[in-house]
């Protein structure tokens, strides 16, 4: 690159890009895995399994299965973790509607910086680092999900060493990114797809009304061999037409961003306390949780393992009651009130694996 070209590129970045707090993707460096660091036998259902904010999307019951894990990175400067997909069962008969994507669903409130006007978007750039066990084509896709769904894709041939891949999405008109807490955009990495999604011509030119056949044309399949692996990290979406260096955030900052969508309180030993409980009858009480951040929406609540009330007895049921800001109220049933009524402490019942989970994912 000539000096003049370099200066022109720098000027473009300064004029059109956001300097600081530029990365729209959450957990792009794959640091946070509140649910689990590794889950095997995936592929039968869509869901969030390991790394926060990254959902595995499947469709039409592929026979392919995989392990998803937070892997350790030792050969890419600046990164210590990656999202790793490892094929464990092949799928050699791909039905038309089959899908496997690594996806992040993005909240409209976090996308307003992409707007050029209420009905148009600026140019923006998606970038990530990846490596594979062998050369394999995957598709990177931006897919908007409000109004008329629009999409654009890029075909990337991933090599066996870490490399950075990117796609610039040109400025577009007739786009809709509502300023609310619902999903407005997805970024997808297509690892596997049937003819419904691969049978056309990849749409690489501009955001256009979504045609399924043009979303992932030309990709290979991660399910072609049990030798197949893919690792990604350093995922970034930023305003402007240049992929600038990845924005590293601290572990604490990234965790707080993730906790808008998932909070998991996990035991690290037996009989650990989780919340104060007001025992309003012998068989019911109310636990109040002071959450680390405001969640995106009222969360789905679940428990795993055994719980009891200190001063009472075993907790047998629970249900979501309300949320006011970051305060969440959960009703508990069981042998709630004991010698210390009307107050107690919710704690695990000699179960070091017990956990409480609040989910407000997209």
């Amino acid at each position, binding site marked *: 690159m000539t000096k003049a070209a370099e200066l022109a590129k720098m000027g473009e970045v300064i004029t059109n890009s956001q300097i600081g707090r530029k990365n729209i993707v959450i957990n792009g460096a794959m640091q946070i895995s509140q649910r689990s660091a590794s889950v095997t036998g995936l592929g039968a259902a869509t869901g969030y399994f390991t790394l926060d904010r990254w959902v595995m999307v499947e469709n039409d019951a592929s026979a392919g299965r995989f392990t998803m894990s937070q892997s350790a990175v030792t050969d890419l400067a600046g990164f210590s973790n990656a999202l790793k997909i490892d094929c464990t069962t092949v799928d050699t008969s791909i039905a038309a509607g089959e899908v496997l994507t690594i996806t992040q669903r993005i909240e409209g409130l976090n996308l307003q910086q992409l707007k050029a006007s209420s009905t148009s978007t600026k140019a923006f750039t998606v970038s990530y680092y990846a490596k594979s066990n062998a050369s394999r084509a995957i598709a990177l896709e931006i897919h908007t999900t409000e109004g008329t769904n629009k999409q654009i894709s890029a075909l990337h041939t991933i090599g066996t060493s870490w490399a950075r891949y990117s796609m610039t999405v040109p400025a577009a008109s007739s786009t809709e990114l509502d300023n609310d807490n619902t999903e407005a955009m997805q970024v997808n990495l297509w690892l596997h797809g049937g003819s419904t999604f691969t049978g056309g011509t990849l749409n690489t030119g501009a955001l256009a009304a979504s045609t399924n056949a043009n979303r992932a044309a030309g990709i290979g399949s991660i399910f072609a061999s049990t030798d197949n692996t893919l690792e990604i990290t350093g995922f970034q979406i930023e305003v402007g037409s240049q992929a600038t260096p990845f924005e590293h955030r601290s572990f604490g900052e990234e965790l707080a961003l993730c906790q808008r969508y998932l909070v998991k309180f996990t035991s690290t030993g037996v009989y650990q306390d989780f919340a104060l409980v007001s025992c309003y009858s012998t068989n019911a009480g109310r636990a109040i949780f002071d959450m680390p951040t405001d969640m995106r929406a009222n969360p*789905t609540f679940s428990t795993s393992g055994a719980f009891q009330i200190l001063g009472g007895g075993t907790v047998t049921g629970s249900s979501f009651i309300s949320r006011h800001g970051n305060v969440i109220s959960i009703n508990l049933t069981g042998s709630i009130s004991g010698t210390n009524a009307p107050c107690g402490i919710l704690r695990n019942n000699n179960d070091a694996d017990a956990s409480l989970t609040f989910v407000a994912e997209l």
Partner: protein
Amino acid sequence: MNITQAKYNTIPNTDTNCSINCTIDGNKVSVPIDPANTDFQAIQEWVAEGNTIDEAD
């Protein structure tokens, strides 16, 4: 998403429904009545398919 055994919960000592306890993909969860919650959205689709949420006790 496979939903089974859905039942409303009320705010204690009131008749106001506040959440739905159900089994989703084999996991027992309590889903708030919130249109922005994606599990609640899935339950609404499940109801639209002809399924029923049991009333609270």
